[in-house]
């Protein structure tokens, strides 16, 4: 295809996106001459070029549109919904023709007659409709220039004068007309001076340019002397594009300072930079061994430059999210008018940038959520009125950066999601059982909407509910390492929140070893790491054949990586690690032989030969140059689904069977508080710490300690249990700290779940014992769930939940900070975190 045609296509597609936005905006402000002029110019440009390239259908269609537009622009007739529809249809027609041209270089048999007549029907004066063609066909180029110029001058003069004489706008006009900060009283003069000069010399940039600019914009040098007028023979496109009345966003002006680059080239660049990063890492390691001063310095520079280069190259692939948002006003307009709803769209943070490939991946889920919000979220005007809300619903798109991620929110002020309804539907579809529901919190009920096979649409409409459920949205977002989250209040509205990584190409990942080979797990899915010490009793159990592990009292379904990959199954004699993963709302443990390290890795595409396997998300090159496969956690989760279900059933059964405190089987940590022995299930112990007494600070009435960069709430079991502190009694001879000097340090049990931690301060750590579950009594006291005889002494069992809540009342609140997604305490090299 000729290059000129290609260029025309690229340009026209860009213009059409702008056109869609303008047309929808036009409906909001029907009188806006700027918008009409902008639309007119765009159509005119396409028409001019299509005439030049002999695309007659396209020319005819755009000409019809142009005739209508020129009447609207001149105010001969005003904008109606019919004309807006006709114009949008025309834009669709243009798009269809352009697509056809793109496919085979001809206009094919795209039928435009119907659209043309629809557009013509909107022209109130048929004479004008028929008269127009000859006139413009005769000399489109000259006409365009003349029009653009006339328009420019008229507006420029009018606005410049208006601005100058308006006292309020004085400062603004000054900024626009006079680059240096002359006093406000001078403002009128230059403005008036500029205006008359502009008139006789149409098309001069200096005179006209300041007028349409918004006051904030600063024109560096609005020279008082008009520069020579542009040659009138300039092509229509150029004249139209540069005409000063152009009110398009500043972005267009930026086009001059940017160039088009082939995406493949950027991808190659990105790949090379990825290589460089790896090579740098290798060099850094080698240099550490050599310890050569000047080499070390040079390497540090290399390190710095590489990081900067990496960042810059990543930036070249960044595009504002506006790119995918720009299609949405049209989608919403069409949808809402089809559904008879009134919806206002607000966009915040359209300039937020995302990697190109991610942008592509987010497009469909985003569109789906928006359609869904329009279809199911926002009510009809009648319903809204009845609910005491304004008839016009608001849909807000918001994008912002947060902690290395981009968050995209789709918020509506509609009816909200009714958790009861969701629950009922989920049960009806057989997705969950009543028992499971009983355990589910209100907030989690809404999340049932993400289950595969769930669709809230009562009737399948052509808008949403065409079999693409929320689970697909969730899967697609999770595939790129993101997360979806929904928050809804009945009657108030719903907010969908997509959390998306900044880039796909480089990710944080955990390297593990299994069957002598290294595999890589994307860090986003990894919640924590648990060491299964075969010597220490932490072991894998089986529930109806499915392996499980008791993680702090809850059954965690396990998948053995070696088994899943069809490798010889290891015996786990030397201990194994469990990576606790969470995807698609499922939590499971992946059993591997060893955990090696976490590092940034560059994701490489997988050979097309291996894509069908489905267990691998890609490959990467490790620090030593070897290739490692990246595991697709989502697909592993699916493979694990059966095991997970078995465990869930078992878990339900277990909950039914052992009620009461007796479920604290396993091993117990015995602590001393005063002269009482308090047992804490070892499952509820993440770490044992010793805090210096002077490190304990206060927030209000609560005690806290600074712990690993966080504020850790601390509760003294002595206070909780009503024990008089027994610091001086000191029968514990092994711990000199506890006698005399009001204990210089406080032993504490730290418990962590989902990124939240609390510390339970005791006075002594005495022992760890197997729960012999000997003589047990349910005699209880405050904060204690029972007692038993352990090691021949009466030992009270701590009601851990109550203790935790006393320390941090919000501990089990569900709104844990998503940034604390990865357990900050998980330390692969510290077996203590699991087994103490």
């Amino acid at each position, binding site marked *: 295809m000729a290059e000129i045609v290609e260029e025309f296509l690229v340009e026209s597609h860009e213009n059409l996106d702008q056109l869609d936005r303008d047309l929808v905006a036009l409906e909001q402000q029907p009188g806006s001459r700027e918008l009409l002029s902008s639309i007119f110019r765009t159509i005119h440009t396409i028409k001019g070029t299509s005439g030049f390239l002999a695309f007659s259908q396209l020319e005819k269609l755009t000409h019809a549109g142009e005739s209508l537009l020129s009447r609207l622009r001149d105010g001969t007739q005003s904008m109606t919904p019919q004309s807006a529809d006709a114009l949008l249809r025309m834009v669709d027609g243009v798009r269809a023709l352009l697509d056809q041209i793109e496919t085979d270089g001809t206009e094919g048999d795209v039928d435009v007659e119907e659209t043309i007549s629809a557009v013509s029907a909107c022209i109130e004066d048929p004479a004008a409709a028929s008269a127009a063609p000859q006139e413009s066909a005769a000399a489109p180029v000259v006409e365009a220039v003349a029009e653009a110029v006339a328009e420019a001058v008229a507006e420029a003069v009018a606005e410049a004068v208006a601005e100058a004489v308006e006292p309020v706008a004085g400062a603004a006009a000054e900024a626009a007309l006079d680059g240096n900060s002359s006093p406000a009283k001078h403002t009128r003069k230059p403005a008036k001076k500029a205006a008359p000069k502009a008139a006789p010399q149409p098309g001069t940039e200096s005179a006209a340019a300041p007028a349409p600019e918004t006051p904030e914009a600063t024109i560096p040098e609005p020279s008082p002397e008009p520069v020579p007028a542009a040659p009138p023979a300039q092509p229509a496109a150029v004249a139209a594009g540069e005409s000063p009345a152009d009110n398009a966003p500043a972005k267009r002006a930026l086009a001059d300072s940017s160039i088009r680059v082939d995406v493949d080239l950027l991808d190659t660049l990105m790949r090379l930079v990825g290589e460089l990063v790896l090579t740098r890492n290798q060099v850094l390691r080698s240099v550490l061994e050599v310890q050569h001063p000047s080499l070390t310095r040079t390497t540090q520079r290399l390190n710095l430059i590489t990081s900067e280069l990496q960042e810059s190259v990543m930036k070249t692939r960044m595009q504002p999210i506006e790119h995918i948002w720009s299609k949405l006003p049209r989608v919403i307009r069409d949808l809402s008018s089809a559904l008879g709803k009134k919806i206002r769209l607000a966009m915040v943070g359209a300039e937020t940038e995302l990697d190109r490939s991610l942008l592509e991946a987010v497009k469909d889920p985003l569109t789906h959520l928006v359609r869904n919000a329009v279809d199911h979220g926002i009510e009809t005007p009648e319903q809204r009125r009845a609910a005491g809300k304004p008839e016009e619903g608001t849909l807000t798109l918001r994008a912002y950066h947060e902690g290395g991620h981009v968050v995209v929110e789709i918020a509506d002020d509609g009816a909200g999601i009714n958790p009861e309804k969701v629950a009922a539907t989920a049960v009806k579809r057989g997705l969950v059982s009543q028992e499971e529901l009983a355990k589910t919190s209100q907030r989690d009920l809404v999340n049932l909407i993400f289950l595969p096979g769930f669709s809230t649409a009562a009737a399948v409409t052509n808008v949403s509910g065409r079999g693409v459920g929320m689970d697909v949205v969730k899967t697609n977002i999770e595939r790129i390492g993101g997360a979806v989250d929904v928050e809804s209040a009945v009657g108030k509205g719903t907010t969908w929140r997509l959390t998306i990584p900044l880039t796909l190409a480089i990710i944080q990942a955990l390297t593990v070893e299994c069957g002598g080979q290294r595999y890589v797990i994307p860090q986003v899915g990894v919640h924590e790491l648990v060491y299964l010490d075969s010597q220490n009793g932490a072991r894998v159990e089986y529930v109806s054949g499915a392996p499980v592990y008791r993680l702090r009292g809850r059954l965690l379904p396990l998948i053995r990586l070696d088994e899943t990959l069809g490798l010889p199954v290891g015996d786990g004699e030397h201990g194994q690690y469990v990576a606790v993963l969470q995807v698609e709302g499922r939590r499971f443990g992946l059993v591997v032989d060893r955990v090696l390290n976490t590092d940034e890795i560059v994701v490489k595409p997988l050979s097309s030969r291996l894509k069908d396997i489905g267990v691998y998300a890609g490959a*990467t090159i490790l620090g030593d140059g070897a290739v490692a496969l990246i595991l697709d956690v989502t697909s592993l989760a699916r493979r694990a689904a059966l095991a997970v279900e078995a465990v869930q059933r078992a878990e339900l059964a277990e909950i039914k069977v052992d009620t009461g405190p007796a479920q604290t089987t396993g091993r117990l940590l015995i602590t001393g508080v005063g002269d009482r022995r308090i047992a804490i299930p070892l499952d509820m112990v993440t770490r044992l710490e010793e805090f210096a007494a002077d490190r304990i600070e206060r927030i209000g009435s609560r005690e806290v300690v600074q712990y690993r960069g966080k504020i850790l709430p601390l509760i003294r079991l002595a206070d909780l249990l009503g024990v008089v502190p027994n610091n001086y009694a000191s029968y514990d001879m092994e711990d000199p700290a506890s006698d005399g000097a009001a204990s210089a340090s406080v032993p504490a049990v730290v418990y962590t779940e989902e990124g939240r931690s609390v510390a339970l301060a005791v006075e002594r750590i005495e022992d760890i014992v197997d729960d012999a579950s000997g003589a047990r009594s349910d005699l209880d006291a405050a904060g204690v769930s029972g007692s038993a005889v352990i090691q021949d002494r009466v030992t009270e069992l701590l009601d851990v939940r109550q203790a935790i809540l006393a320390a941090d009342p919000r501990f089990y609140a569900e709104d844990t900070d998503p940034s604390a997604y990865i357990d900050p305490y998980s330390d692969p090299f510290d077996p203590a975190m699991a087994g103490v």
Partner: protein
Amino acid sequence: MASRQYATFEVDDVLFGVDVADVQEVLSFPEYTPVPLAARAIGGLFNLRGQVIAAVDLRVRLGLPQRDREGTAMNVIVRDGEEPVSLLVDRIGEVIQLDDESSEPPPDTLTGPNRDLIVGTFKLDNRLLLALDAQRAVSPPHDS
């Protein structure tokens, strides 16, 4: 007279050749990352100047037992569309020029999995050369 150059190599003492135009490069590589669950013919992955390359075990494609995964193997890297793929072979031979007309169709007695990979045979002075369709040899094998 039309002629072309063939890059030759041996697998199981049989001489094969592929059109040099299909060959990107030839190299030996010591270590391959196995891909569990992949087709048997996938000999592993390796790092070629920052690109992850899949190696296809030509022995398996020819219906022979898998090669020993340990140790260095020779790679004939051919391009499959945009993607380079390696063919694992035993030994690399020389590049020879052969006339198209001296090619004969593969003998009818040639059956089995390698039948569709062989596009022709050349009678050299002292042995036979089987011309291999490189694209087919590296295309996803159907066993799994």
